């Protein structure tokens, strides 16, 4: 993506399973509080359901399932990052479920290291690079969201389906 190559790029970071991930900020349309999401029977396991974004029906993607991370726990800080992604030759709007929102960071080309060959929690293919922020010792993983969504799930869809009871509660229950 060209936006990641320009001199200094802004990223929005969010927390998933304790790790900080980031997306190019031009991809992010808005951030909204997690509210009722309607489960869609038969949809891929990583589609948590659909919700109403001011009159249009938008799918919510659970990246933890897609990336093979520990399952997300809904808390008061859970939110949906509404992004625009490119699939095939159309732009589609969808929501990404996140544990919490991190920060807006600015990274120049020198702050982004290429992803290591292995060792990251997420498959290297899905990463644009590793962002270094200030003096922090931790890297922020820069996600290539187009690739993530077009790629195959890490685990088979059925293996990750939660027990039915818990699932319904998690998807339909409003977060207190």
């Amino acid at each position, binding site marked *: 993506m060209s936006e990641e190559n320009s001199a200094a790029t802004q990223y929005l970071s969010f927390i998933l399973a304790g790790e900080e991930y980031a997306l190019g900020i031009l991809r992010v349309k808005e951030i909204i509080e997690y509210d009722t999401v*309607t489960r869609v*029977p038969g949809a891929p396991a990583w589609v948590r359901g659909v919700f109403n974004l001011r009159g249009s029906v938008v799918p919510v993607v659970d990246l933890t399932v897609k990336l093979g991370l520990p399952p997300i726990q809904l808390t008061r800080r859970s939110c949906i990052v509404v992004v625009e992604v490119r699939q095939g030759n159309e732009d589609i709007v969808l929501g990404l479920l996140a544990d919490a929102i991190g920060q807006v960071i600015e990274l120049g080309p020198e702050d982004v290291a290429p992803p290591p060959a292995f060792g990251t929690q997420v498959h290297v293919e899905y990463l644009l690079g590793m962002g270094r922020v200030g003096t922090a010792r931790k890297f922020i993983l820069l996600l290539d969201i187009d690739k993530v969504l077009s790629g195959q799930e890490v685990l088979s869809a059925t293996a990750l389906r939660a027990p039915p009871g818990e699932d319904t509660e998690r998807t339909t229950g409003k977060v207190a």
Partner: protein
Amino acid sequence: MTPEMEKIHGLFLAEAEEQLATLEQGLLALERTSGSPPLASLQCTLHTFKGGAGAVGLTAAVELAHLLEDLLTLLEARAVVLHAGLGSLMLQAVDVLREQVGLEPASESAQRLPALEVRRLLESTLKASQPVQARVTAPERPASPAEPTAHREHTLRVGLGRLDRMLDLTGEIAIARGRLAEMLTQAHRYTPQQLMEAHRDGDRLYLDLQELVMKVRMVPIGRTFQPFVRTVRDLGLAMGKQVRCELSGEDVEVDTTIAELIRDPLTHLVRNAMDHGLETPEVRQARGKAPTGTLSLRAFHDAGTLVIQVVDDGTGLDRERITARARTRGLLGPEETPDEGALLRLILAPGFSTAERITELSGRGVGMDVVKRNVESLRGTVSVDSLPGQGTTFSLRLPLTLSIIEGFNVAVGGETYVIPLQNVLECVELPAAESRPGSTGVFHLRGSPLPFLRLREHFALGGSTPARENLVIISHERGLAGLAVDTLLGQGQTVIKPLGRFCQGLPGLSGSTLLGDGRVALILDVPALLQQALQAASPAALA
């Protein structure tokens, strides 16, 4: 040129521009991809273009398109290999087609070949590759070919009067809103009844506006039917058949999207009827029929749906040939004898053709597939009726509007689902004595057994079944069936929203809608849902 012809020609030009652009993109994509090329959609586009060009009498374009179609067939059968020279020849042919129908060619004039040259080259290419046998084995077609849809803005003429009325209404709504807002800021001075009254005033205006907007989308179907009169006449002349084209229900209003998407299926149905259905005068007389055949296009409303029929009084479908053809293609087992309806539905399968020869008009088996796909994309159904020797009737059953349906809301657990009201016959309570756990069961409805599907189990929603369940009884092709749900919420207007990527096309769901509280509710696709149950259960369960 008569004003009428001019209109038809204008319609054709707009379509041809889109079709040729699609064709060009398709050919270019063909060159880029190795492996199995997406030929089916190209053939459909070309076939439709050919039909249109024939209707406005552009013989040269029809012939050239036919050559191209032959070439595509050879490509599909892998009798010729697509190389750069052939690719550019085909693209040049597209440009020639553009020129012949009166559009601006896309390439530089220096690179263009004269029409005759292109034709000669195509013909020699075809001749050079040996004629292939009719395909015996079914070619693998993609289940849902992703057709590159050209990005072209769709426009609609709207009477200025209607627009003015809409503008007036918007103004009135603005006033009503302002009044309500003012009343609410000083709510203590009004009774709740007064506030409600003010709200209702605004609501009435809003509903008027909604109705008007929906009406604006409606156009008389006659405009879609008109061009076929000419098609029938010209085809009749070309084939030495005497056919009278009859139209009825031309003033039936349909949604503009339906009117647009129904044109291709109608083209194919009319051409099929002309080619295979209707006989020559001699044959008709020998069979004791009037020498002039009749082809009718009808539109009417029936039970909340729009029905469009293409009726011919020709030879009817040859059941034996369909059966034989289905056997060779592996659609039917050697011992299987399908019932009437199932047999006739076979002809809608992609690539299915009983024609012995491929003519300019039909025989490639592409047409019926287009019909089925287009109609299904409009949430409609196709059915075929045929009497041997007396003719064939194709009925396309379509929803009246695409965006609003009457829905029946039901709740299961915390979720709300909408069942299209047209499917719902009645609702009964499921007695606790008759309910056994499990995803399906049988209920005694006034003496006859009624199979039912428990939505909670079917969708794996979890949670416990409540003490009292309700059964929504729905009618489908094979009779009655029930859907067991927790609560019945009642009926209402349902605005259909597409489910969007990732959730589209899931079996059992046809879309979604927004509820009053802002939540999303899913709209059930009842026939598909029951089909699933049928497949899951033993085949005898729903007999």
